[in-house]
């Protein structure tokens, strides 16, 4: 709809064919590592890169917040993983014994951050879908 712009309406860029529903990114990041593990622990940071690229293409009005949550999430995940391994060694526990717990907790941090970013992007995506649907009629 031409004319007045509402602030929460996304302004998609030219490559809008690449825009996906952010929940798809969330589900892919859950299931893909069961089949293929990306190098350099990519399963923990690639989804954030994807969701930010998606937000950029979408012209998401909340892109800055999405980037902020993503960076905070990656830093928290990284800090926790390194800190937990360091603490384990410092306290004399065997890393083999604590590793499964560290892995579960780090997954918790990762999914929490990703879930929050996806939720943030879902609102502009819903508005984008609606506007696109209206334009096609």
């Amino acid at each position, binding site marked *: *709809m*031409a*004319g*007045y712009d*509402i*602030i*929460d*309406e996304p302004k998609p860029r030219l490559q809008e064919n690449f825009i996906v529903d952010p929940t798809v990114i969330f589900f892919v990041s859950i299931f893909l590592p069961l089949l293929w593990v990306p190098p350099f622990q990519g399963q923990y940071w690639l989804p954030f890169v994807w969701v930010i690229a998606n937000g950029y293409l979408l012209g998401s009005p909340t892109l800055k917040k999405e980037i902020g949550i993503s960076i905070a999430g990656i830093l928290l995940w990284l800090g926790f993983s390194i800190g937990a391994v360091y603490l384990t060694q410092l306290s004399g526990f065997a890393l083999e*014994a604590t590793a*499964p*717990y560290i892995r*579960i*907790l780090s*997954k*918790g941090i990762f*999914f*929490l951050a990703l*879930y*929050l970013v996806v*939720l943030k992007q879902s*609102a502009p995506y819903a*508005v984008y879908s*609606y506007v696109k649907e*209206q334009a096609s009629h």
Partner: protein
Amino acid sequence: MDGYRIDSIWRAMRLGQHTHAIDLLKQVLADDPQSAVAHALLASNLIAQGRLHAGEHELKIALSLDPNTAWFYLTYARLCTLKNRLKEAIQYCEQAQSLEPSNPEPLFMLSEIYLQLDERQAAEACLKEAARLDPDSRRLEIAFGEFYFSGGKLDQALQHASEALRADAGDADANLLMGKLQLALGNSDDAEYHAKFVISNNPSSKEALRLFSHVKMRRNPFLGLWWRLNSKIAALGNTKGAFVIIMAFLFFNLLARAILDMGYPTTSLVLSLGWVALVLYSWISIPMYHRALKKELEEFSFRKDY
């Protein structure tokens, strides 16, 4: 705004067609960006769609253009209640009241806010003041009904709901109140009747759809559990809801791992399977719930002008 556009916008809003109303208001604002009323109406529609951030932005513009219209403040108060900024909502209601001292609407809203704050005496005082200002207001019976319903006094609430329906059997709020009461009294058929009545007049009524869903879920234990879980998590808001879900994930997985390390592999397996079952249940329930609701709604006959 010209008369034809105003009529079209009000008609769309009355029928709950907020997306259509927004499109019309965007056209109006493209022609006249200084129209405070158009900004405020746009805000109302955006709020109805749950787009609170954009709604607040539009309300700020409306108030900067015209700070002397009471219903702008009332709309802002409504927005603040939805954002759980109740103290701020009280301030906006009071501003609306100072602009229109003879209008009982700010008092009705204040009463709702005080009920949310669990300040029942203040809520009752507002309703009594509203009754003094406009003893014939149709809203009065409904507001008192809601007041007693929230306090668990179902008999008194029922009396007021019946009175409201006697005055206007087609009133949506009166029907919703009666529906909620009937459900609380265990009469789900009656509750369904009132919910269906409101939906047939306004298929976008969130309150009516919620009541209808409550009725359906009450009758279906499998989906009812999911509905209650989902409602509780949704009521927490996005961030807290996400925390709860992740905590559940951590609790199940850490416990299963700890039990495995203690030498109980079978118990650990059962716990892990329990988590998988919970995840599957929450996934399966969503399409099942939507399908059930859609099937029911397809049987509705809506009013002709919808």
